[in-house]
């Protein structure tokens, strides 16, 4: 597989505390990669190592199949979790400054800033100072600064914290568009819904160890429990229930329905297929609802973390 970034056996210790313990991750080119983990798991340390802000004690990192080089910061855009801007500097001025620190020429930086400012409809902020803007507004500016130098790899640490839903939507849209344009996106979060929505790949870090990684769909397939939720209408619910109970492991289910359904969750064993279950149900009742229970990332997260606790 073509990986943009490969981290091999990364260790990082702070005194007696181990922040990363043999963490290896492969990030495929053009993917959206979610780095999950509870607070304090070591996500930010890992991102800082990729950004060469901190150096790993052991391990190697490859960008584009070459060992990471100090000049590679030009190819990386980083939006840290702890982010801010100079309070007393004008928006345009400091955007220019930060863009030039990433290696853009003054004219290039200006041109691209104009493009982005127009795109996000913030052109009239150019001469304002950050202290006059709200937190969400300032974060829009930070987002622009992160993507301005068109990096191959974009790293967002908790990108949606502090955004109102409207702006979070805008940023989400922009992230996906950047992916379309060929960028690879790595973002870390402890909010599972955003992973569900955006990520193709994910890795789970807990207490300095990587517990799990891979394609999101594959992981989900691995974690599914062969359980189906069904909504049934039958003339004699009691006999149906007794009959089902004999054959399957039943549970209660709750989903929204317009019918007066008998709501059940049915777990199949390995030998039985969904088709067999469906055939059986159709012969006994009217089937209004039939859905495979796919574990959410949140479920997987909780399950994995408690397993390793």
């Amino acid at each position, binding site marked *: 597989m073509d990986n943009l970034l490969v981290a091999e056996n990364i260790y990082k210790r*702070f*005194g007696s505390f181990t922040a990363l313990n043999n963490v290896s991750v492969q990030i495929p080119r053009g993917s959206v990669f979610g780095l999950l983990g509870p607070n304090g798991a070591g996500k930010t340390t890992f991102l*800082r190592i990729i*950004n060469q*802000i*901190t150096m790993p004690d052991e391990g190697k990192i490859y960008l584009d199949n070459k060992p990471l080089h*100090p000049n590679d*910061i030009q190819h*990386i855009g*980083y*939006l*840290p979790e*702890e*982010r*801010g*801007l*100079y*309070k*007393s*500097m004008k928006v345009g001025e400091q955007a220019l*400054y*930060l863009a*030039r*620190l*990433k290696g853009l020429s003054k004219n290039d930086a200006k041109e691209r800033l104009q493009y982005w400012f127009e795109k996000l409809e913030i052109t009239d902020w150019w001469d304002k100072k950050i202290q006059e803007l709200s937190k969400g507004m300032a974060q829009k500016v*930070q987002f622009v*600064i992160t993507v301005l130098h068109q990096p191959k790899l974009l790293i967002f640490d908790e990108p949606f914290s502090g955004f109102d839903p409207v702006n979070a939507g805008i940023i989400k849209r922009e992230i996906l568009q950047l992916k379309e344009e060929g960028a690879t996106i790595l973002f870390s979060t402890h909010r599972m819904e955003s992973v569900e929505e955006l990520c193709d790949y994910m890795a789970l870090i807990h207490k300095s160890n990587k517990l799990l990684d891979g394609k999101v769909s594959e992981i989900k397939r691995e974690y599914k429990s062969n359980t189906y939720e069904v909504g049934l209408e039958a003339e004699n619910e009691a006999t149906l229930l007794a009959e089902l109970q004999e054959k399957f492991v039943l549970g209660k289910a709750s989903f929204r329905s317009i019918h007066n359904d008998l709501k059940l969750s049915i777990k199949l064993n390995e030998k039985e297929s969904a088709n067999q279950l469906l055939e059986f149900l159709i012969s006994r009742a009217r089937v209004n609802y039939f859905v495979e229970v796919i574990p959410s990332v949140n479920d997987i997260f909780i399950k994995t973390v408690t397993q390793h606790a």
Partner: protein
Amino acid sequence: MRNLGLIIQREYFARVRNKTFIIMTFLSPLILVGMFILIGYLSMLNSSEQHIIGFYDETGMFTEDFEDEEQIQYLDFSTFSLEEARDKVREQEYYGLIYIPEKASGEAGQIQFFGDESPGLGTVKAIEKTIAERLTRQRLMANGVNVDELENARAKVEIQIQNFSGQRNSKMATYIKMIFGGVAGYLLMMFIIIYGNMVMRSVIEEKTNRIIEIIVSSVKPLQLMMGKVLGTSLAGLTQFTIWVVLGLVLVSIASFSLGIDMFSVQRGQMENIQQFAQPDVTQLLLDVYNLPLLSLLLFFFLYFLGGYFLYSSIYAAIGAAVDSETDTQQFMFPVILPLMLGIYVGFFSVIENPHGTVSTIFSMIPLTSPIVMLMRIPFGVAWYELLLSLLLLLITNFGVVWLAAKIYRVGILMYGKKASYKELFKWLKY
């Protein structure tokens, strides 16, 4: 390198555009000149004040000797009784009454001065001198010495101080050297503290603004720290240059328009420190020009850079270690201490003996050398001492910057952790 340039540029303009900076740059010389004018005015006011002193002379010998002087007017109360004389002086609120008893021979305690307040040292000296001179004459005459001949025979000697390369010096020159050295050393300390603090505040600002992590994802922390230190030092030099120019302009305007001769003010203060022969203004100017002004300026520059770098990298490390300015207190004392030590050693030891052991040692220790050595330079310091001192300063700079950068690197990304010395020590090993 390109990034370092960008950082220096930003830091420089961030300092220079600051309102406080602009106000202080243009207001400070005004305040300073204003103070000079005030001091000059007050000392003129002081000297124009006249004291009236009564004398009660039982011997009748001194009546003619008490001549009115610029600041003292004498009144003869000898015709009254002592009691009456004292009452009158008190009633009129005169400055005091001198009582010379019949058999005065000048020994302590015989001649008395009555007054509500104790008289100024100068006044007492003047009175004592008058009486002593008269008594000496009296005694010489009693021993059959011709006083006029003696007076004529008195030789006047003034030793010309000259160093081996033939440069002339006057006694005045020593004071001028003290003043130049002292001012240079003090100025250096002020600059280090003011600009070191600016560096520290700027580091704290970046930390509390949370912009720091965005920046260090583009540049190395050492680059950022050095850019900050350099940019701020340029702001310092800008301010210094403006002050020198502005100061010169203002002093000349002030002295011309207000008619106060700055030199005479200075000389007047000198005389208060110690009485010595009045040199004329030309000699004073000559003495100033004889100072190694150019090398003083050059070394001020070198030691400013050396000392400033040393201290401001420490300030930067402190700024990185804390979350807010209030947390800096515990670290400030060890920084201020060597600076104060430098100033005290300078003012007490160097002035006493510029080439003594204490002065020499402290002008070598890198934490105090910028201040102490600057104070010594006007007195002439051997080139090898200067070289050694600067070399030590340079080496220490490398060491301190290296250590400070390590603390800085870790500290800027630490939030909400109360840094102790133990913690800082641990950071050095990360």
